[in-house]
């Protein structure tokens, strides 16, 4: 799992999706309820119209006579009702408050009846829910008007079945709506977050050296973030440039006067015949070299410490790098008739590392070897792969025929400003090997000094590949 370098406060995507899904679920539920209600009321209205027509049809068939009312219940009225399935139908006809035919206990309307426009109500009757329609009309019985109420009830199982079917459809509709809306909200979350992802990718893909501002167009909501990021990049790049400029300027400002001093000393050396003066001028020139070397190593060391935190990794061919550095030492070594025995592999050895760090390490190793070699000495420089299949370690070994270590421990010599016990007459700051060790540690490698068989010192720098 990828390690996070900050506390995570959850995912915007998850939050967005969750909120959209809740919203969609609520909307689907509302849709379901509305459809169900509208469908239910539409069915009820239709049923009521049939029930009402049947009731009115019965009422219209009433005939007043001399001594009573003739009721001829029309077949059509029931066939209308019967069309709706297995419902049971009840009726009750009341003349002037007396039930003359039908179910005597079929409930009456609570509100006043409105003539031939039916009044509808729902009651529980014979342990079933019954929808009832009631109408009234006046009928002449022996020249005397009589008030006749016609009440027709019908159980609701067919209506309920239709409503249930409607509800199922509404539920299916709600679920379908939910499914489509959920997919759409996933896509929305994705497209809303796409600019964030693009920005992350654009910034994440950059190499550590790439300190240009982010110029990709972003939505206005991300603009403050990008502005802040760009300001930060500008500050970082400024700091890096200042550090590198400072190191270059410092080197220039210290080394130029040293060069003048050394040149003047050489002029005097050249013009003085007296052996004692010449010896003291040489000592002076050695001190100048000493200072110059120390300045170089202090700046190297500063760069190494700084670069260890700000590593700029790249693919480096160690064989070519070693060859280049040895070539750079050539003339200085040549001046003392010192030769290099190179044993480098033919194929490149590529490792991912910070070029400046590796260069500092190898340069300091060679500088040491040249410095401590006698006139006409030879220095062997070997580079080899170690470990199974050459996949493990690369090992750089620099051996001189100098004065050796005289028993001083390797770990002591690699300490800052530490020097061997036998080197008082050779210029040095004691930082060279510290730099090598720090570079080795920064790359997960190891550095060690050993006595060479037959006299001299071997410096052994091993670095893991990859």
């Amino acid at each position, binding site marked *: 799992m990828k390690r996070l370098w900050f506390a995570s406060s959850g995912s915007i995507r998850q939050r967005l999706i969750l909120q959209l899904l809740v919203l969609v679920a609520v909307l689907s539920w509302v849709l379901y309820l509305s459809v169900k209600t509208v469908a239910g009321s539409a069915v009820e209205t239709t049923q009521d119209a049939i029930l009402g027509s049947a009731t009115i049809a019965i009422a219209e068939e009433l005939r007043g006579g001399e001594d009573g009312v003739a009721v001829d219940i029309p077949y059509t009225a029931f066939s209308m009702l019967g069309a709706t399935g297995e419902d049971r139908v009840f009726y009750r006809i009341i003349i002037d408050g007396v039930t003359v035919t039908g179910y005597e206990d079929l409930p009456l309307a609570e509100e006043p009846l409105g003539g031939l426009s039916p009044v509808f109500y729902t009651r529980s009757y014979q342990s079933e829910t019954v929808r009832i329609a009631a109408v009234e009309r006046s009928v002449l019985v022996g020249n005397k008007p009589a008030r006749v109420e016609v009440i027709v009830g019908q159980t609701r199982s067919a209506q309920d079945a239709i409503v249930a079917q409607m509800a199922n459809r509404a539920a299916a509709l709600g679920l379908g709506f939910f499914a489509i809306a959920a997919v759409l909200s996933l896509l929305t979350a994705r497209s809303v977050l796409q600019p964030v992802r693009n920005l992350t990718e654009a910034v994440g893909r950059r190499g550590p050296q790439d300190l240009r501002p982010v110029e990709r167009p972003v939505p206005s909501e991300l603009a403050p973030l990008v502005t802040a990021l760009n300001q930060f990049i500008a500050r970082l790049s400024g700091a890096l440039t200042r550090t590198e400029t400072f190191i*270059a300027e410092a080197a220039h400002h210290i*080394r130029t006067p040293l060069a003048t001093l050394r040149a003047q000393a*050489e002029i005097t050396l050249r013009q003085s015949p007296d052996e004692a003066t010449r010896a003291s001028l040489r000592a002076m020139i050695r001190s100048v070299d000493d200072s110059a070397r120390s300045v170089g190593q202090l700046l190297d060391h500063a760069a190494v410490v700084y670069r260890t935190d700000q590593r700029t990794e790249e693919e480096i061919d160690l064989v070519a790098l070693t060859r280049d550095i040895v070539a*750079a030492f050539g003339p200085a070594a040549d001046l003392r008739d010192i030769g290099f025995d190179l044993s480098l592999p033919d194929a490149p050895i590529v490792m991912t590392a910070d070029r400046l760090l590796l260069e500092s390490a190898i*340069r300091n190793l060679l500088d040491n070897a040249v410095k401590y070699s006698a006139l006409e000495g030879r220095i062997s420089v070997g580079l080899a792969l170690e470990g199974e299949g050459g996949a493990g370690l690369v090992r750089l070994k620099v051996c001189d025929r100098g004065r050796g270590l005289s028993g001083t421990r390797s770990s002591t010599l690699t300490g800052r400003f530490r020097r061997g016990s036998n080197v008082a007459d050779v210029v040095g700051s004691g930082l060279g090997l510290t730099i090598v060790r720090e570079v080795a540690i920064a790359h997960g490698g190891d550095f060690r000094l050993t006595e060479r068989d037959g006299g001299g010192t071997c410096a052994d720098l091993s670095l893991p590949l990859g």
Partner: protein
Amino acid sequence: MRFLLVEDNPDLARSVQTRLSLDGHAVDWAASLADAEDHLAASGYDLILLDIMLPDGDGRDFLAAHRRAKRDTPVIVMTARSAVSDRVALLDTGADDYITKPFDFAELEARVRAVLRRRMGAAQSLQTYADLTFDPLSATITIAGDSRELRSRELRLFEILLSGPDRIFSKAQLVDRLFSAAEAVSDNAIEVYVGRLRKKLEGSRARIETVRGVGYRLTAQ
């Protein structure tokens, strides 16, 4: 030899000028890139010594322009920085060599000679003296078909002596040109190299003569 020194620090420039003139070289000084252009337009030089940080620009840009203009005067860059990548970049830009300040004049001379030898090419670099042929590129002396190889310091000693046959060079003068000034050597250290060189010259009419109390000179019998 004739050098053009491009360096903005007057103290350093004067010192380098003086020191090189002691070895018999002529040095013109340019304090800026514009100045250097003027000098180059006016006369020819064997070699340009170029500083990088100059008041009117970067020495590397001057170097690149110099090479683009197909001018082939060799250039040795003097810089305060010692990173190898700087060196590789400079050589890629067209510098012939690179020397870090503060520098040793013996080392500078060695580098200058090396650059000039490389530039000259095998045919033109062959020199003859008396009955010997000297090839500085391969560092060999051939006497009557018999080749002898010279080591670095023997080669440089022979080059110095050969630059002025019959001229007397003092021990101190030779030590100053052969050894780094930081080397703790006495003037007598030169005797070893004179001895070795005499051995290599055996069988030739050319020989190194000791002028008692003064120094050495190369003569032909």
